């Protein structure tokens, strides 16, 4: 089963990391994801720009275009991984491994449809 690991984090904290702290987190995570990639388990992984770069389009009778993320929550969606796991149990283990020593929150969601075509794939 393909799972999406949605990384939710307090953006103020992530933005307060120094470059060294940021690099250290990425390097630590890469040690886990590299192993998954080697086994052909890792799908696309995405780190999103800060929510300040976000634009929200709300459809209705008149579509409304707003600056910022769709919800003003403390923890914002900052990125995601797609990883092939044999079971939810394994997915939970993977989340704990990737997030070790961090204050990140992972929402694990089984993927229903995965389309990958063209440049963005």
């Amino acid at each position, binding site marked *: 089963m393909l799972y999406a690991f949605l990384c939710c984090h307090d953006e*103020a904290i992530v933005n307060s990391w120094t470059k060294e702290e940021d690099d250290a987190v990425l390097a630590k995570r890469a040690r886990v994801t590299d192993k998954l990639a080697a086994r052909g388990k890792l799908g696309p992984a995405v780190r999103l720009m800060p929510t300040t770069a976000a634009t929200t389009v709300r459809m209705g009778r008149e579509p409304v275009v707003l600056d910022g993320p769709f919800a003003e929550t403390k923890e914002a969606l900052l990125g995601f991984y797609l990883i092939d796991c044999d079971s939810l149990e394994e997915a939970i283990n993977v989340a704990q491994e990737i997030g070790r020593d961090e204050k990140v929150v992972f929402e694990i969601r089984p993927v229903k449809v995965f389309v990958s075509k063209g440049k963005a794939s």
Partner: protein
Amino acid sequence: MTDVAWIDPLLRSARPQAVGALLRYFRDLDRAEEAFQEACLRALKNWPVNGPPRDAVAWLVLVGRNAGLDDARRRSKNDPLPADGEISDQGDAEADIAERLDNSHYRDDVLRLLFICCHPDLPAVQQIALALRVVSGLSVKEIARAFLVSESAMEQRITRAKSRVAQADVPFETPGAAERAERLGAVAAMLYLLFNEGYSASGGTVHVRLPLCEEAIRLSRLLLRLFPGEPEIMGLTALLLLQHARAPARLDADGAIILLEDQDRQRWDRDMIAEGAALIEKALRHRNPGPYQVQAAIAGVHAHAAQAENTDWGEIDRLYATLERLQPSPVVTLNRAVALSKVQGPAAALAMIEPLAKPLSGYFHFFGVKGGLLMRLGRADEARIAFDQAIALAHTPAEAAHIRMHLDRLMKDSQPA
């Protein structure tokens, strides 16, 4: 990671909002800072045992507020003190205060905290130093190092700035729209000063000062998160990102300045450029241009050119013309002249800067540009005079060294082969 290493970024990121809220509560900067300090000490004791609270800012505000009240009671010797730590894990109280201190409150708290640092009577350096101390929470030692002064001198400056600010009487009511816009403008200008202090390295060495640029970007992003629909704050953030993206390519191994056109563009930070470009695009949709947006757009044109010779100088000339209209200044005209020299040649540019000789008579870059234009026109003697004037006005060894390089080139060219 050690056991408590995770607490540091939490406290750092919570500081502007927590101190801002405590300032609204106590209406006194020193008391707000002391209360926050006390809350941080209790957090360092409490969090490793109980884990991080759901809402660190709310926790720090609540604990800080109670600590400040305890302190006041201790002074008046009225009520007995509550046992230490009693307040720390009252879940309901925490949730309650989190409810009340919602985002709309926080954003005016943070804005007010930044705004009081921008008192117009304070010289730029004091504004920046105060913001670094109060909003960012840098130690006096760290700030003193960044400004190359002794710790005691910086301590004095900050104390003086604080007492000046205390007399200023900034209103604590929720500001109206006009008031808020005015505050945003003043704060944006201060953040730009902070960035430039790090960027231009007036006196300091670069590695000490890069953190000032990073802090300016962090605070600018924070401001934009609180005011997501402000195109000028998008422009400011984009401008800082696009300029900072060039930092890895701006100086050579000896610390000498590398001009934009000679920089190794492979070393520019692509992530920052992409984020800056995204913010410019968002800002443009508002169709409400301002100086930061236009300057960001100019930086964006440079960032877009893979090679210096691909630069769209015509577009840059047009953008500077817009900037001249929005914010007339001799320095803007000087920059426009540089763009014009690429489009129409050095003679046209020289004519454009002629009227600037008087207002910019003490400005290093004026003589640097003038010398460069004269050099291109083959007027070596006049160029040498301009370069000599530039060296006399240089702020840093790197600036002086850069001009000396031109002089050496002139000397070499004038010698018989």
